[in-house]
């Protein structure tokens, strides 16, 4: 039986994917984010616009398609997320 991810885990996975894929200033394409974070296109569009409005991701205008890169506050959030994820793991719980 599959295990559903919580909303915050999905956000964490997207930010993690964005951080991993933001090699240069161009950012990561939606397709790459979908593959890396394992999420459908319908869902990710909604979450991405929310993350951009919260300032965790930055939208980069590219010639071909819209790309996203992780912002400084996104990196801060991701660091906090990892710390507290480990904290809840210690109690046998998921964040």
């Amino acid at each position: 039986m599959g295990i559903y991810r919580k909303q915050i885990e999905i956000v964490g996975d997207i930010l993690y994917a964005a951080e991993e894929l933001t090699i240069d200033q161009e950012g990561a394409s939606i397709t790459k984010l979908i593959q890396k974070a394992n999420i459908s296109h319908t869902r990710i569009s909604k979450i991405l616009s929310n993350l951009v409005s919260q300032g965790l991701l930055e939208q980069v205008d590219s010639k071909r398609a819209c790309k996203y890169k992780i912002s400084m506050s996104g990196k801060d959030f991701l660091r906090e997320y990892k710390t507290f994820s480990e904290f809840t793991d210690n109690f046998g719980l998921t964040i």
Partner: protein
Amino acid sequence: MEFLLENILNLIGFIIGIIIGVFAYVGYKNTGSPVLFRLTLAFVAIGIGFGIIWCGYMIDDLYLQEGKINRGLQALGLGIQTIGYFFIAFSHTIKSFFPKSRYFRSVGILPLFALSAMNIEHIIRSFSFILLVYGAIETFVSFLEGKQKGALAVGTGLALLAFGEFIAWYSLVFPESVLYSVSILLKISGLISLFLPISRLPLRKIKFDDLDDDEDMKFDDLDDGKFGR
């Protein structure tokens, strides 16, 4: 001797409970995770519970000098601690649906019958024992699944606290024995074991979010409640 040990236990419990509670609260503020909110309630309650009992002992030591704590104060402290243990168990219950755990039900109900004639303090202790055993079992199960050393330490801590409560019952049967002192030492070891994995996390780097409450990130309203808990 017991008086001193009780003082040390309750002071350690108060400090560790509040530290872990504040840490969980910082996590809740920064991530909005309901699990961290429940852990905040759990450890703040545990810390306050220990703190109340510690205050009771200190009041007796400094002013009343009767050599025993006020029973009402002790019951209040134990009750608040039990609420804390409840929230730890409750978080596990949400994660792995309670009725599946037949082992817990068979083990957990027994002490309630065994102590049905005892006073309220011991009934509260029996609840604490049940909740701690459940929390320990679930944490050990998580350790077996994920092999996280931290989970092993926390599971051991909860198990030692539960065993301490269990031994404390036996001290009712043998009141003049060393059992009560042993139970206190077990509980101190349990609290230290609980704190070990937390102490490895980068406490100093964490700060409260600068945003106001209205500006806090709210991810729960993003989608249908399928992923939320």
